[in-house]
C-alpha cells in the first residue's frame, strides 16, 4: 500500500532522514520505534506531504505521491494523528470532529461516525460543546484520534497516540487501533515510544536510529530481539 524508497528528508538545511526504505502492506499494522529525535515524526511528515523528500520516492499503491500537497493526500485516503495533537483550539469538540470529516459529503455517515467515536471515548461526548483548547492533555489526544477516524482513512498515521494518556486509556487506545484495523481494514502506520505495547499489536516493526532504519522484522521477533529489549523496552 505504502512504500518509501531511499527517502532523504529534513528541515531547511538540516538533514534528518537518510535513505529510508519502508513498506506497509494493505491492512497491516506496522510500527516505527526509535529514540527521541530519531526522525520518526519526520518520516510521517514526509508521507503526508508536509515535508518534501529531497531524494527518493514515496509510493501510495504504486503511484508516486511526492510533491502532492497534504490536503490532496487526505482525499487519497491518508489521515493522521499528528504529534502535538493540533486540536483547533476555538472550535468545540463537535466542530473539531466535523472538521475531521471535512472532505466527506455523506451527512448520514458523518453523523454515525460521530456517535461511534463518542462511544469509543465517552468523555468526549460529555465535553462536546467545550472548546478543544480547554481540554486536558489526554482528552485532546482522544479528540485527535477521533478526528482522524472521522476521515474514514484507508491509511491512518498515528504519531505517539499514547503520549500523556492514563494507563487504562492507553490500553483502550491500542485496543481501538486494533479494532479499527480489523473492522474496517484500515492500514495503520504507528509511531510509538511505548514500544512494548506497540509491538504487541503490530504485525511488523521498524527501528530507526538517527534517521536510518537499522532493523526490521516481524513484531514478535523484535519483541524478542536483545538489542531492542535493551534500548527500547527497558528490560
Amino acid at each position: 500500500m505504502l512504500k518509501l524508497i531511499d527517502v532523504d528528508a529534513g528541515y531547511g538545511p538540516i538533514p534528518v532522514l537518510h535513505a529510508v526504505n519502508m513498506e506497509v502492506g494493505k491492512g497491516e499494522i506496522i510500527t516505527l520505534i526509535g529514540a527521541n529525535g530519531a526522525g520518526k515524526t519526520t518520516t510521517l511528515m514526509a508521507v503526508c506531504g508536509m515535508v518534501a523528500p529531497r531524494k527518493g520516492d514515496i509510493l501510495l499503491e504504486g503511484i508516486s505521491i511526492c510533491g502532492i500537497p497534504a490536503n490532496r493526500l487526505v482525499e487519497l485516503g491518508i489521515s493522521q494523528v499528528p504529534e502535538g495533537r493540533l486540536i483547533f483550539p476555538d472550535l468545540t469538540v463537535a466542530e473539531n470532529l466535523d472538521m475531521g470529516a471535512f472532505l466527506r459529503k455523506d451527512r448520514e455517515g458523518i453523523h454515525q461516525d460521530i456517535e461511534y467515536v463518542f462511544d469509543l471515548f465517552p468523555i468526549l461526548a460529555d465535553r462536546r460543546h467545550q472548546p478543544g483548547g480547554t481540554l486536558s492533555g489526554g482528552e485532546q489526544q482522544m479528540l485527535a484520534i477521533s478526528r482522524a477516524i472521522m476521515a474514514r482513512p484507508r491509511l491512518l498515521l498515528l504519531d505517539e497516540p499514547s503520549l500523556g494518556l492514563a494507563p487504562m486509556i492507553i490500553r483502550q487506545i491500542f485496543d481501538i487501533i486494533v479494532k479499527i484495523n480489523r473492522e474496517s481494514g484500515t492500514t495503520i502506520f504507528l509511531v510509538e515510544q511505548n514500544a512494548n505495547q506497540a509491538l504487541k499489536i503490530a504485525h511488523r516493526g521498524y527501528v530507526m536510529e538517527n534517521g536510518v532504519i537499522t532493523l526490521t522484522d516481524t513484531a514478535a521477533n523484535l519483541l524478542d530481539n536483545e538489542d531492542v529489549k535493551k534500548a527500547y523496552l527497558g528490560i
Partner: protein
Amino acid sequence: MGRMEYFLEIFFGGLTRGSIYALIALGYTMVYGIIQLINFAHGEIYMIGAFTALIVAGVLGSLGMPGYAILLLTLPIAVIYASAYGFTVEKIAYKPLRSAPRLSPLISAIGMSIFLQNYILLAQTADFLPFPNLLPYFDLPDFVGGILTSSEVTIVITAALVMAGLTSFIKFTRMGKAMRATAQNQRMAMLVGVNVDQVISLTFIIGSALAAIGGVLIASHIGQINFYIGFIAGIKAFTAAVLGGIGSVPGAMLGGLVLGWTESFATGYVSSDYEDVFAFALLVLILIFRPAGILGKADSQKV
C-alpha cells in the same frame, strides 16, 4: 430644531460612517484571523476599488448609459478588480513570507501600501476627482426626510445585507468552515484536507470585495476621491476591527458601528477638534477593560 431630531441625525450619521468602517474592517479582521497579519495595504484596495469604479462609470457615462445600468455594471467590475488586486498582493507580498518571522509581512504590507498609493498617483492623478453619485435616489417619507438621505439609507442597508451574507457564508458553508479551521491551525487544516492556499486567497478576495463595495458606496456618498483616501479609512477600519475583537467577524461590524457612533457623537456633542482623540481614547478604554476587544475571545490556550 428639536433635540431629539438632532440626536437622531447624529445617530444615523454615525451609523452610515460606521457601516463603511465595518465593511472595510471585515477585510482586516478576516485576513488577521487567518494569517495574523495586519494588512496595511487593505486601505489601498478600498481606494483602488473606488478608483476603478470611477473609471468604469466614466467610460459608461460617456457612452450615455442610464444611471442604474451604470451602477449595475460598475459595482461588480470594481469588486472584481479590487479582488484581483487583493489576490495578487497576497501572492506577491505575503505568500512568500508564510514561514517568515511574524513582523516581516507587516513591513511588506507597509511597502505595498506605499507602492499602491504611488501607483495610482502616477497612473492617474494626485488631484481630487469628482465621483458621480451612483446610488439610487428615492424619496423618503416626510418624517425621516430631514434626518436621513436616501444614499445613507442605501449604504446602511447594503452594508447590513453584505454582512449578513458574509456571516452566513462563514457559518454555514464548507468554505467558511475551512476558513475557521485555517484560522486556528494551518497545519492541521491541511491535514484534514483543507486547501490552505486556496482558503487564504479566498479570504483576501472576499475582504477586498467588501472593501470595494465600501469604496463605491462612500465615494458616491461623498462625491470625490483621490489616491490617499485609503490610508485614513484604513487606519480607522483597522481600529474598528480591533475594537470589536480582531479575528471576529461580528466584532468587526460592531466595532465599525461603535467607532462611527463615537466619532459622530463626539463631534455632535463635544467638538470635532477632538473627534479622533475620542475614537482612540475609547479604543484604549475598551481594551483596558476587555483586552481582546468587545466580542473577541480571550484565547483558550491551556498551560
